[in-house]
């Protein structure tokens, strides 16, 4: 099967087309078809893990076909250690998210199903595209489904949140478009080959100086908005709070990873010199994000908003890890992307389940849940502990590696970031205590039902992975190491070459 990546990417689109033709009356048929599509996609993506060669640093399962030959645009897909886990995370979260939407999406399931499946194609395309033009198409096209999910199925203030989300991300990515074009023409003028092919462009040594800095900044802005890094994060709480549960899960689980993935896939190899030059700035913003996100989380009264701000903090760790440019930091960053997808995704799922029961997300409206819904409370606790980085669970592995990496290059940043972990314990455990422990303060909470079979099916796989990564992370880190090592070597040799180029031209 040579077209496995295309298959994984476009099976959801195919499913969307089938659902488009299904009759509107039968909601169950639509739901089952959507779920089957996403499970099939996940099944198709599993061979990527089993047949992936962890010793090879290069792209695997590569597909390439000319698309616009006169412009050097090709349909080029491939997966390596950097994108593999994110692809699997996407296909893994999708069926769970759809199960979580089963009853919580109350109207227009057919449209919802089509939008979600198109979104999945867009997200997979972003992680798999190895051509800048193709990447940009997926990157932008994916905005629309997310915009519709927030805007149609979201909360009371959904229109504002949806527009804010799309305008922020669009502005960032449009500047990236100009940078992509500039890189294309600079490379073409220097080498005579006009191409958008990422592996080819990554070999090109761009002279150090203003051009490289500006191109780096244009790319970095697009990714920083998406991550989101402080101070570009203000769209995130709005989007998360207004989005329906599936929207929040996908937003936190996958979409935010596109920003950090973009740094790794594009900024580092394409602009190594600028990456090194701006690394201290990125550290500063990352640390501010870690602390600011944690502090703002602490004072939230709405659980969903608390989780949203915690994302700002957690993704600060990821950015910190990526810009250490050493193996521990990078591997930690990649694992932490997956961890955040799982833990925060699970937090949003549980918040969604609480909301479905009580139609409120305010911490003050809960209390004493342990006596009413013990199973749910237990799972909630595990997820909180995973999110705050308890050893033995997944979050610890990523944060530990990142801090090890950061300590080697920037001690102060590492120390401040470690303080961020403490604050994470503060806001999560304090919230958990107020929601779950103590006496039942509200009469309405006495009658809550514990987890249903469907909810068990949703949460069990996530928890299994949380333990698996926590106890035996090598199953995942081993897949990434070769690519990470190759990336670091590439950045260093290119930075050296750039410096040599700069010293020769006075």
């Amino acid at each position, binding site marked *: 099967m040579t077209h496995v990546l295309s298959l994984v990417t476009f099976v959801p689109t195919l499913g969307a087309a089938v659902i488009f033709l299904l009759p509107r009356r039968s909601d169950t048929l639509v739901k089952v078809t959507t779920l089957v599509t996403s499970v099939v996609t996940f099944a198709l993506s599993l061979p990527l893990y089993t047949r992936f060669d962890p010793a090879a640093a290069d792209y695997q399962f590569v597909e390439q076909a000319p698309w616009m030959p006169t412009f050097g645009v090709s349909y080029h897909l491939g997966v390596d250690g950097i994108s593999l886990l994110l692809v699997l995370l996407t296909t893994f979260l999708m069926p769970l998210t759809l199960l979580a939407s089963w009853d919580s999406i109350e109207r227009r399931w057919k449209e919802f199903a089509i939008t979600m499946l198109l979104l999945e194609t867009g997200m997979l395309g972003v992680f798999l595209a190895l051509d800048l033009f193709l990447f940009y198409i997926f990157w932008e096209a994916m905005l629309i489904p997310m915009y519709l999910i927030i805007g149609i199925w979201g909360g009371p203030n959904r229109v504002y949140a*949806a*527009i804010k989300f799309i305008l922020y991300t669009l502005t960032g990515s449009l500047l990236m478009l100009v940078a992509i*074009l500039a890189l294309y023409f600079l490379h073409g003028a220097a080498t005579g080959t006009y191409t958008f092919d990422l592996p080819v462009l990554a070999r090109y040594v761009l002279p150090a100086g203003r051009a490289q800095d500006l191109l780096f900044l244009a790319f970095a802005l697009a990714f920083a908005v998406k991550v989101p890094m402080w101070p570009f994060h203000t769209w995130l709480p709005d989007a998360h709070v207004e989005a329906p549960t599936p929207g929040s899960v996908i937003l936190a689980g996958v979409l935010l990873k596109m920003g950090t993935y973009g740094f790794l896939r594009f900024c580092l190899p394409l602009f190594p010199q600028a990456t090194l030059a701006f690394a201290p700035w990125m550290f500063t913003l990352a640390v501010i994000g870690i602390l600011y996100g944690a502090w703002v989380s602490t004072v939230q009264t709405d659980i969903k908003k608390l989780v949203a701000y915690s994302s700002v903090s957690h993704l600060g760790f990821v950015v910190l890890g990526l810009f250490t440019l050493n193996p521990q930091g990078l591997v930690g960053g990649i694992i932490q992307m997956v961890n955040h997808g799982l833990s925060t995704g699970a937090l949003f799922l549980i918040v969604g389940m609480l909301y479905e029961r009580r139609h409120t997300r305010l911490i003050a409206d809960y209390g004493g849940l342990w006596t009413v819904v013990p199973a749910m409370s237990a799972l909630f606790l595990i997820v909180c502990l995973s999110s705050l980085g308890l050893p033995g669970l997944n979050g610890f592995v990523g944060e530990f590696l990142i801090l090890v990496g950061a300590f080697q290059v920037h001690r102060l940043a590492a120390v401040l970031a470690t303080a961020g972990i403490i604050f994470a314990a503060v806001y999560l455990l304090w919230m958990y205590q107020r929601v779950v422990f103590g006496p039942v303060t509200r009469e309405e909470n006495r009658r809550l039902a514990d987890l249903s079979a469907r909810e068990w099916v949703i949460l069990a796989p996530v928890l299994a992975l949380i333990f698996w990564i926590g106890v035996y992370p090598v199953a995942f880190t081993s897949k990434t190491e070769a690519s990470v090592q190759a990336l670091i070597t590439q950045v260093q040799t290119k930075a050296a070459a750039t410096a040599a180029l700069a010293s020769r031209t006075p």
Partner: protein
Amino acid sequence: MTDVLAGLVAIAPALVLTVTGFVLMALDLLPPRGRHEHLGFVGLAGVVVALVTTVLLWGSDVSAFRGMVVLDNFALFFNLVIGYATGLVLLLSMDYLRRRGQESGEFYILVLFAAVGMVIMASANDLIVIFLGLETMSLSLYVLAGFFRSRIEAGEASMKYFLLGAFASGFFVYGIALIYGATGSTNLDKLGVAVAAGAGRDPLLLIGFGLLVVGFGFKISSVPFHMWTADVYEGAPTSVTALIATGSKAAAFAAFLRLLLASLRPVQADWALLLWGMAVLSMTVGNVVALAQQNLKRMLAFSSIAHVGYMLIGVVAGGALGNAGVLFYLLVYTFTTAGAFGVILLLERGGEEAVRLEDTAGLANRHPLLGLALTIFLLSLIGIPPTAGFVGKFYLFGAAVRSGYYWLAVIGVLNSAVAAYYYLRVIVSMYMREPEGTPTSVVPSFAGALALVVALWGVVQLGLLPAPLFDLAQSAVLPLLR
């Protein structure tokens, strides 16, 4: 004899359209007197024949009437754009006119004669012929703009369009006169020779060209010559608005580009600066003012001004990429805009046209397919992939970056972000709001649906597989750049 034949070939597409126009005039006198829809279909058949002629003649390079008219790939590409625009407008008009109780044969005849003028402008290689085409087109459009004569806005639209258009034509003719005085010729090639020889510094010639820019700026509705646009777009019948936005713009761009490339390339640095300013102003003013519009036709009017700004980016950037980018964008814009207007003209409430933003509330819930169609057209206007609008902008901004106009590209993309807001507002209204009061109704129409299908096909096809058409556009501009 061969001269005559060559001449006939050179104006073949215009001839086909003219003959169709005359046939319609004759048919209009014959029974059945009460109905006129068949005239629309006959007109459409004429347009299709003209399109087929265009395709068959592709690759020819004929010069006729002592070099006043040429038929090259450049003209043929514009014939394609104009043909699609006219065809779509005819399809959109049929049910629309009957619903408005304004059906009559003259409408179709005037649309065809406007198309004749446009096709002549695309082929014109002489300032006088450009002017002839321009007036043929404009006079038809003046009448069409006021076609719903019982409406007061129609009178305003027609009057304003006519008065300001007459002024612009005056500028244009005066410019021609000055240029003739300076060089002794109105032929574009001969002008090019004179400019290359150093006449470009002659103040008389400079003023003459400046006046031509005013005339063209008016017809393409670029800032600061855009004042008429919103009122005319609002007051004219919606299908005529679509024609003014697509066909007449394309024709004016055809003549403008030919003048710039054939005659003024030696002084490109000078006019590039002027057009740089016009591009930035058009994009910014168009988009910012569009933000405040509640009437969809006015919104699309300002959006069309902004899109002219994007296209001027390609003109400024120049080269094969920039100019072919403009041609490609015009084709994309024709499909997209005709489609958007095509959806809007289907909306009505209590027998009246419903063209305000709030009239689209909940449209996608009641008519999912129609809502989806308008969504795709709007996404293409924003320039979101994988629609054609993205590819078009990609070529234009790419050309700007290649020629070193980084700022122009940056201003262009920031404008696209601003524009996203007002297009998205319509999508918000269609999907996320519920109508207050009576919801608008949609009158199904076979011809209208056909037009929408064609426009959607264009938007999707050019978005996913743009290469063949872009190669055609490139082969159309390359001879002019030699």
